[in-house]
């Protein structure tokens, strides 16, 4: 029997039981849609996060934070929390360590210290206050290191700032991104920091002059500029916070290749006797990739279970179909059909169901993913500047097709085999 004839015969058998076939197909649709939706959202999230990290984290910079926690070196190790707030400090990272770091390796162009504390700002009206991260940096070094992100949208960034000049992130100026400005360039704001290392806590406030508002960045800004931060001169920060400890030291490298990043990371870590951790963009990215592939596998695995259920559904209707069509199989065999062809006919039926289910499943999974992304993008859950654009890769499409059809075939194997093994004499006698 020709393949096209097998196909049309199978199709006629499916058409005869439309509702049943549709419900079975629905099972496959749900399974595939779940897989596609989850994977494309995860992939989209990964793309978004990686993209944002890349903006906040130059490839040729290393970030040195105090603490020997699992905060991975250049080998792409762990990325534990706590580092930036300086909560896990064994030995403090002094601001003047930058001089020592600069001399550690010829691969290092320069390094500079960043002091970061949580605080809040109040504008002239004094009614609203916004929680922010107060970052003390050398403006000229910072602008040099983050030449694409530490850029003024309005006003200008003073390279030799006076003590009370500050620069604010785009989101601080326009918190809701709707044009209702909280502060603008040349405004005066009050900056408050609560010193909680003394009992009772002491609130310290000073009035600063907004010299510039940054362009919108959209990234997380690890070490680098952030949309929600305010930037004060390093010397002012030292004085205001009463500290000579850096929360982060940013090291600018001559090259962004992996070997340089690794070797320099190790040199710095060794120099400080493992009392610091060095984070690099590549390490964070490789870690993110690992995390996301684990998440994908996990979510995909859960979705795959629903496909397994669909497979059992297929097996179920194929067995029912086989029993109903026992006599038909007897007729087919009596007029010369081979067992093998009977097997093909049954497998083809499940392939058709699997194929239709997979195609509809991929489409509806994609629609579902976009719906969820739209919901999240509106601030439904994540709320921040994070918008997810689901990504549907060719691999996911082909994988979903293959998986849908594969499951259908695997679960149809047994009923198809049983159908093919029916004895014509007995099958013809079947009522």
């Amino acid at each position, binding site marked *: 029997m020709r393949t096209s004839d097998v196909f049309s*015969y199978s199709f006629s058998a499916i*058409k005869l039981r439309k509702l049943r076939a549709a419900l079975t197909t629905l099972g496959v649709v749900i399974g595939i849609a779940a897989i596609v939706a989850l994977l494309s959202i995860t992939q989209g999230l990964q793309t978004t996060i990686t993209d944002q990290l890349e903006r906040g984290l130059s490839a040729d910079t290393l970030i040195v934070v105090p603490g020997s926690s699992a905060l991975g070196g250049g080998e792409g190790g762990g990325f534990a929390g706590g580092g930036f707030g300086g909560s896990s400090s064994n030995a403090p990272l002094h601001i003047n360590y930058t001089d020592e770091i600069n001399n550690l390796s010829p691969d290092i162009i320069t390094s500079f210290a960043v002091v970061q504390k949580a605080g809040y700002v109040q504008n002239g009206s004094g009614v609203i206050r916004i929680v922010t991260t107060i970052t003390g940096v050398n403006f000229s070094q910072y602008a040099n290191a983050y030449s694409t992100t530490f850029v003024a949208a309005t006003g200008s960034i003073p390279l030799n700032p006076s003590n009370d000049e500050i620069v604010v992130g785009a989101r601080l100026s326009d918190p809701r991104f709707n044009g209702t400005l909280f502060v603008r360039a040349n405004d005066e704001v009050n900056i408050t920091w609560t010193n909680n290392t003394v009992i009772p806590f002491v609130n310290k406030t000073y009035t600063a002059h907004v010299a510039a508002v940054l362009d919108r960045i959209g990234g997380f800004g690890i070490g680098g500029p952030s949309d929600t931060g305010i930037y004060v001169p390093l010397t002012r920060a030292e004085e205001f916070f009463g500290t000579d400890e850096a929360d982060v030291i940013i090291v600018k490298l001559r090259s962004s290749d992996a070997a340089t990043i690794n070797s320099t990371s190790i040199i710095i870590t060794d120099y400080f006797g493992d009392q610091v951790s060095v984070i690099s963009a590549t390490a964070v990215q490789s870690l993110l990739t690992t995390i996301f592939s684990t998440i994908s596998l996990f979510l995909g695995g859960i979705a795959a279970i629903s496909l397994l259920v669909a497979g059992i559904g297929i097996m179920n209707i194929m067995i029912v179909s086989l029993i109903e069509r026992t*006599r038909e199989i007897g007729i087919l065999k009596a007029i010369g059909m081979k067992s093998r062809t009977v097997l093909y006919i049954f497998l083809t039926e499940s392939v058709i169901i699997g194929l239709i289910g997979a195609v509809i499943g991929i489409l509806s999974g994609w629609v579902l993913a976009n719906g969820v992304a739209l919901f999240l993008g509106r601030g439904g859950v994540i709320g921040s500047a994070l918008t997810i654009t689901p990504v549907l890769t060719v691999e996911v499409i082909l994988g979903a097709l293959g998986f849908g059809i594969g499951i259908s075939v695997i679960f149809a194997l047994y009923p198809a085999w049983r159908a093919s093994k029916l004895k014509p004499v007995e099958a013809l006698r079947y009522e």
Partner: protein
Amino acid sequence: MEEMFMAPVVEAIDLKKTYMLGKIPVEALRGVNLKVESGDFLSILGPSGSGKSTLLNLVGALDKPTAGKLSIDGVDVSTLNDNQLADLRLRIGFVFQFFNLIPRFTARDNVELAMSIKGINKSARTKRAQELLETVGLKDRINHKPAELSGGQQQRVAIARALANDPRFLLMDEPTGNIDSKTAREVLNLIQRINGEGVTIVMVTHDQRLALEAKRTVQMFDGVIASDLVN
């Protein structure tokens, strides 16, 4: 002249078939000798339990004998595997008591099905199916499904299907058993006409009057042939 070189259509020598009914062996055929030559119209007559259905299954290559020799179109059945038996069945045209058409197919699709199993292409099939349905007098019922046809018409479709692959012989199992007597006569006339055109026919029945319409009647009783007479 051609027939001189041809093997008999069916040749059975001391054919035996034993079934296991649970743990009890049942000897359905106890040594049948039979020869069907090309162009013959043979009826096999016998009461239920006489072994005629068993003989039908063997001659139809649906089953294999326990002992003895059975050749169909010169092929020794006992040496064949399932696939080869299926191929052999392509050379046999089956006509069943209950028509056994595929209900979802039209008359033409049912006739075409037999040819599609053989691997004949669509256009050749359609043409041949059309011709065959005209031959059996169903020119205006070609696109009707079995449920839209009378019993006699369904059996004509079944005969057209049986003829589709130019079989060596037609094997009929009570072909008029499920049709009213008037229509049965018409179907029988059709069968005789087909035989007149040179198609070999083996017909199994328990109806004596029908059996006598054949050229030759074999009477079975208790697993053996009791008589073999030319009518």
